[in-house]
């Protein structure tokens, strides 16, 4: 087939393709064509959005399912059912499935959705379906954006507020030799902030990774980077018995690859 013939053939399949209503051969044909044809790709993307709108629903999230999923995140988890169950419960606690209190968080969410709706209305007049990516259009400099946002909010203020709350907990992370390497304040709601950090800088190929020990299993709280910054924030949850820091390859790992370089008990 000539390129034009392929294009016409694929074009006629785009609707069915977006609905997963083609057979495997046709799917392969469409997908190889899409790589080199921005026009067909744009049409498929638009159809996929329509399909997603069609398939969008207001079903509530299945409440028990997260426990199953959480239990499979760490592929090395032993097959011991009780342990998995305990860990799953801990994960559920981190996820915070209790109905959200109406407060600052909820307001921000509402504002975001309202903003999204308003932008959507404005964009519709301009370019059909260009609006679908509106809440994501600035995702390119993702990490930078996170950091800028943090800076704008005044890093440290939240940590100070956590310290001011009498129900906060302080966690001192110490190295194997007993040297104090970091102090973390954990707010009553389970958000942690790095107050002081004396970790040695790592080369760019490595990162510090923070873990919570929950029922003797490490759960990743996120990456601290090669030079952990004061006021870094993370979600500790309320079930952690200790915080651990390991050195990992840049990009992080699913589970600790070596012994922790610092450990601190979380006490009530």
């Amino acid at each position: 087939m000539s390129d034009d013939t392929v294009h016409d053939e694929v074009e006629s399949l785009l609707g069915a393709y977006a609905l997963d209503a083609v057979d495997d051969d046709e799917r392969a044909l469409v997908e190889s064509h899409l790589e080199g044809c921005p026009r067909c790709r744009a049409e498929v993307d638009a159809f996929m959005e329509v399909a997603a709108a069609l398939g969008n629903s207001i079903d509530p999230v299945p409440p028990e399912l997260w426990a199953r999923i959480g239990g499979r995140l760490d592929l090395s988890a032993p097959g011991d059912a009780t342990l998995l169950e305990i860990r799953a419960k801990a994960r559920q606690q981190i996820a915070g499935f209790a109905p959200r209190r109406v407060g600052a968080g909820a307001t921000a969410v509402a504002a975001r959705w309202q903003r999204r709706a308003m932008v959507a209305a404005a964009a519709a007049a301009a370019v059909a379906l260009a609006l679908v990516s509106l809440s994501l259009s600035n995702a390119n400099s993702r990490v930078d954006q996170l950091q800028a946002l943090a800076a704008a909010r005044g890093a440290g203020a939240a940590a100070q507020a956590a310290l001011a709350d009498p129900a906060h907990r302080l966690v001192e992370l110490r190295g194997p030799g007993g040297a104090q390497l970091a102090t973390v304040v954990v707010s009553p709601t389970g958000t942690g902030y790095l107050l002081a950090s004396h970790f040695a800088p790592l080369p760019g190929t490595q990162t510090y990774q923070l873990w919570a020990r929950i029922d003797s299993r490490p759960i990743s709280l996120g990456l601290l980077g090669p030079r952990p910054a004061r006021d870094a924030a993370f979600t500790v949850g309320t079930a952690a018995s200790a915080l651990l820091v390991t050195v990992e390859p840049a990009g992080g790992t699913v589970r600790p690859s070596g012994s922790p370089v610092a450990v601190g008990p979380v006490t009530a």
Partner: protein
Amino acid sequence: MEEEQASLLSDAQLVVAVGRFREDALAEVYRRHGGAIYGLARRVTGDGAEAEDVVQEVILRLWSRPDAFDPSRGSLRSFLLAQSHGRAVDAVRSRAARQRREGREVPTPSGYDIEHQVWDLVLADQVAKAISSLPEEERAPIELAYFGGHTYREVAVLLSQPEGTVKSRIRSGLRKMRGVLADSGVSG
């Protein structure tokens, strides 16, 4: 560097956080979109247990391959729903080979943000209008393919119509829906 609470992050930021092994971010993705993923999979498979498997696969895939989501091509909800649909259709097509348990408990409602509900209701309303604005000969093949998990060839047999006709009606129907949705300022 300060990391925000997962509940305050945008969808795109959540995916970045997932890429940095933040499990709270994955949990937030699940909280925001798990219901929709489940709803679609359940509608296509007609089976709660199968739908739960689909949700699990979709969420675990995001955990292991967050880079597969390309924000320039659409929203996270659309991406997850496309994954959900593809897997649900696979499940339907290979059902003969699968043994399914019956009588799964129907999930009870949980904390699903009221703001999302409002948005979803607006969306559902617009989508209902869009699909009902289509002539029957375009609406039927789209619904049979999308919700029935049928290929367009199977739809052609079901409707006793030529394959080429079904193919082009699906496409023209989707184009019209796209126009209606864009005009109403709503999309996936």
